Structures are given as C-alpha cells and as structure tokens.
C-alpha cells in the first residue's frame, strides 16, 4: 500500500491539565483499509478518536485529511467533510424510529432540511439511503420501531447504520461491539468486514478475536503513546506488544 493516506496525524498531543492523554501520536489511515487501535483502558484511544472527529481540539500537532489540515475545526464541520463516527456509549435518538434516525443522519449530507423541503426527489433519495443503511445492518424489519424499544445489540447496530447513512468517506468506530454478546459480536464483525471494501475504517475494539480478524493494520497505544504500529501479523508476533498488553493478559489467564 503505497497510496497517500486519507487521514494522517503528526505529533498529535492532547493534555487534560497535568495528564497527557494523547502524546505525540503519528497515525494514518490509507484508503480501503481497516486500521484498528488497541490498548488497555486509559491508553487514550477514545481521546484520539475524539481528536480526529473534532469533538475536542488538540493541544498541539496536526491532523491532515486528504492532505489538508483539519485540526481546530468543529465536529459538525468535520462530519460534513465525510468523516462519520460512532460513540462508545449508545448514542441514538430514542424517541425516533430507526428509519428516522437514519434519515436524520442522511439528510444533512444530502442538501439538508431545506433541500428535502424543496424537492421530492431529494426527500426520496434520503429515505432510500436510510433504508439501504438499515438493510446493510439487517434492521429493515425494524424501520418503524422506536429506537428505545429495541434491544441493546440492535441499538448498537443502529449506531453503525446511522454512520453508514451519512455515506462517509472514512468511518471512526469507537468500540462498536462494546457490551454485545458472542453471537452479536460475530454478526457485527461480519458486517464490518463487508463494509471494509467500501469504507476505510478506524476501529477501536477490545474484542481481540474480532480485531485480528478484521484489521489490516493495528496501532497499539499505551499511556497515550504509540507502542507499535504495523500490519496485523507483525503486531500479533510482536514481543513488545505481547509483554505490555497481551502478555499481561496471558499471565492473568494462566494464574
């Protein structure tokens, strides 16, 4: 993969008072790849995603999207540029039904409220894209169910459907499978695998099996710093990673 990266960061740093949550991180995503971020709790994974999506501004460093700097832009501006994200906590519109959830996501990227008001075609295109997103996530039969009436797993899937409905050119998913059962996790893993062809993906996930099955590249973070970054196989074999992260896991398991 020698193509230019879609998104890259240089020396990205974020401090919260005395704590350096993200420390001098160089990171990049290339078109067509799933780049997973691994790391123990508090490693700064979510902060990194929040920096990339503009929800918090960096203390220093650069974020380039398609070669242009985007650090300091607002979350909604970055969303409009085609970087769609999901949140670690379930983040949906509980009183609206699934279709409306996805319509809201699609509409702002397809001419907005007033575009849909002016043209019937536009309104239909929005609904079609919303339905498509639901279909991809196997939620079509739930289109008219209020989001609050669905199971937790389905709500997580709806989150992914909403990101899809924005037709992003890059997806940032923060623990899409958090709190899911084994079966649901497998289902979502398949779903993400299918999406990888169309959408470059930055994925934070705790589920090791899924990560190693999905990711083309993995970046391992510890205490805000990048420990190692490379192709999945390299990370799997890495002594350093095993010591700091996997190793600790294994010892615990054996004990």
């Amino acid at each position, binding site marked *: 993969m020698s193509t230019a990266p879609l998104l890259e960061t240089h020396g990205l740093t974020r401090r919260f008072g005395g704590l350096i949550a993200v420390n001098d991180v160089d990171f990049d995503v290339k078109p067509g790849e799933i780049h997973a971020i691994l790391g123990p709790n508090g490693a700064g994974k979510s902060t990194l995603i929040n920096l990339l999506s503009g929800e918090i501004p960096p203390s220093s460093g650069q974020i380039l999207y398609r070669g242009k700097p985007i650090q300091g832009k607002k979350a909604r501006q970055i969303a409009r540029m085609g970087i769609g994200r999901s949140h670690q906590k379930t983040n949906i519109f509980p009183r609206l039904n699934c279709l*409306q959830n996805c319509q*809201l996501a699609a509409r702002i990227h397809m001419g907005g409220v007033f575009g849909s008001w002016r043209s019937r075609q536009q309104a239909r295109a929005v609904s079609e894209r919303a339905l498509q997103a639901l279909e991809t996530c196997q939620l079509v039969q739930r289109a008219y169910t209020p989001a609050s009436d669905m199971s937790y797993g389905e709500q997580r899937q709806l989150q992914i459907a909403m990101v899809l409905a924005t037709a992003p050119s890059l997806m940032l998913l923060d623990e899409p499978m958090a709190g899911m059962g084994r079966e649901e996790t497998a289902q979502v893993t398949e779903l993400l695998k299918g999406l990888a062809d169309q959408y470059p993906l930055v994925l934070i996930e705790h589920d090791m099996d899924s990560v190693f099955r999905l990711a083309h590249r993995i970046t391992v973070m510890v205490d805000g710093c990048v420990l190692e970054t490379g192709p999945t196989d390299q990370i799997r074999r890495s002594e350093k990673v095993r010591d700091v992260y996997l190793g600790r896991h294994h010892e615990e398991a054996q004990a």
Partner: protein
Amino acid sequence: MLHRYPKRVSIIMLVLTALVALFPLWGPALFGARSDFVLEQLTLMLILALFAMSLDLLVGVVGLVSLGHALFFGLGAYTLALASPDFSPASLWWMLPLVMLVSAVVALVVGFLVIRTKGIFFIMTTLAFGQMLYYLVSTSPYTGGTDGVFIMFRPSVAVGDTLLLDMDNPLTFFYFCLGTLIVGYVFLRWLTRSYYGQVLDGIHDNEHRMEALGYATASYKLIAFVIAGVMAAIAGMLAAMQYGFANPAQLGWHTSGEVLMMVILGGMGTIFGPILGAFAFEILLHTYEHLTTHWPILMGITIILAVLILPKGIAGLIIAPPGRDALMKSPLLRWFNRRGQAGSAAVKSSKPAAKSSKPAAQSKEG
C-alpha cells in the same frame, strides 16, 4: 410514532372547537347576564392558548425551558400600544406585520445570546432578559411606567373604507382570536411533523449526536426560538387589544411562570396539550378565585397533584388513556397503593388463623 396521535385527539379537539365556536348559542342560556363576561374570559383563554402553544415549541419540542417567554408576549402588547395613533384606530394590516417584525428581530438578538446556554443556564438567561425588559418598560417615561400604555382604539381590519371585521364587537374579536389560534395550531402541527421538526426532535433527544452528524444545532434552535417569539408576540398583541392597554405585568416573570404551568399542565411537546392546559388553568383560576382569597395555595396544590398524577399532562391522558396498571404507576397512587397493600397484608395474615379455627369449631359441633 412521535407527533402522530390517535384519532380521538382530533375528534376531541374538533368537538371542543365547535363547542367554543358555538358559545353564542349556549352561552346566554347557561350564564344569563354574565354571558358577556364569560365570552370575554373565553377570548382571553384563546389568546393564552396561543401563547402557551408557542412556548411548547421551545419547552416541549426542542427541550429549551424558557422562563422569559412573557418578554415576547409583552413586546407584542407594547408594540401595538406604542405604534397605535391616539385618536384613530390603527390598521391591523400594518400592526400585525410590525409586531411580527419587531418580535422576530428581538427574538433573533436575544436568541443568539441565550441559545448557547443549556439547562439551568438557559432558564436563568431567559429570565434575565425578561426581567430586563420588565424594568425597562416599568421605569421608562415613554412606556408609561408601571401604569402602562392605553390603547384607545382597537386596530381595524378594513379594505379601503369598508370595515371587514369590527374588532370592537366582542363576538367578532372572539372569532378572530379563535381563527388565529386555529391557524397557529395547524402551523405548529405541520412544523413539528416536517423535516425541520424531525431535526428539533433529534436535538431534544441528543443534541451532541446531532452535532456529530453535522447539524449546526444552534441555528435550528435559534429558528425555533424566533418562531416561538413571534407567535407569543401575536398573542400579546391580541391580549392588548382585548384589555385595551399594555402593562408591565404582561411581560414579567410571573406571566412567564404561569404560561409554563399551562404547558406542563396540558402536556409538553404535544402542541394540542398546552391549549387544553391554558383553558384548564384559567378555569381553575376562576373557580378558586371564587372560592377563596387564598386561591394561589389551591392553585399550587393542584399543579403539584397534576404533575404527580399526570406527568404527561392532560394530553397524555387523551393520547394513552391510563389502564388500571398505568394508574397504579403514578407516584402518588403508588404511595397510596403501598399503604393499602400494607393494610391488606395485615388482613391476609390474620385470615389463615381464622380459617384454621373454623374446622376446629365444626368438629366441636360434630
């Protein structure tokens, strides 16, 4: 689904509208000589319903609790009073657009400043703006101080020299207010079910997610703030026409509080609920005023009970009439229920003892 209600809501609202519209037929028979006074009060309720409905767009639909909405109500009243000539009626063709324009501009400025605040801070900033205008008009010589400004002639609705509507006729004015309320209602119902309304629902549920999707939520909220402000100002203008004056009390926090109670009593976020809330509030007020001079205490108790028993207001009662189970879930009844259960448990525990003694008695007889 959100903002779609069972058919009985439309039926009830249509029946009530017909009942109100036909007041001239049944009013005199029921109220006799007091019928004129009742018509006046009914007109006022229609105006307050429009006012409450406009606040519901903010409080119930967007989720912005404003404690300064009377600012716009009073603004409409004062705009009419100050712009009316002293010795001839103003033309409503001019007054209505003027009131709408002035209130829209003020709502845009105030909204721009308050819309970024959330929760308690939004309540406090709207309250502050309302009180600022209150002190401004009650101390300024141009606005008549605490006496307010009198309106000598109600604005006329005429084309050329022909009078279309004689606003000085109480019945004509009553129907004019009813018509305005209906137009306002249809508009808000349409708005809440539109694409824009969907965005407002999204902001109500999860503003953070809306931002992350790419919506500039502040602008959408500002538009709602302006629409609500303009509608409240129209209601205020009608109130000033009804009373014949504009008074500082119309824009004080007391008025803001009362209209908020109407919205809560009627059912937040339903648009039709606050109409019922305004009527219920006013009818209760008149009843209690009649009973005792300490009526605010009764009013307070009623509001507290209403919130406890009907958390979704009168509208909630109509949308989903409570079954036995739902009734038992309301906090107050749950409390009663618990006490009841404690009582019945005591009865139950004594029963087996009574039963066991029976066979013994029978055996004795045998």
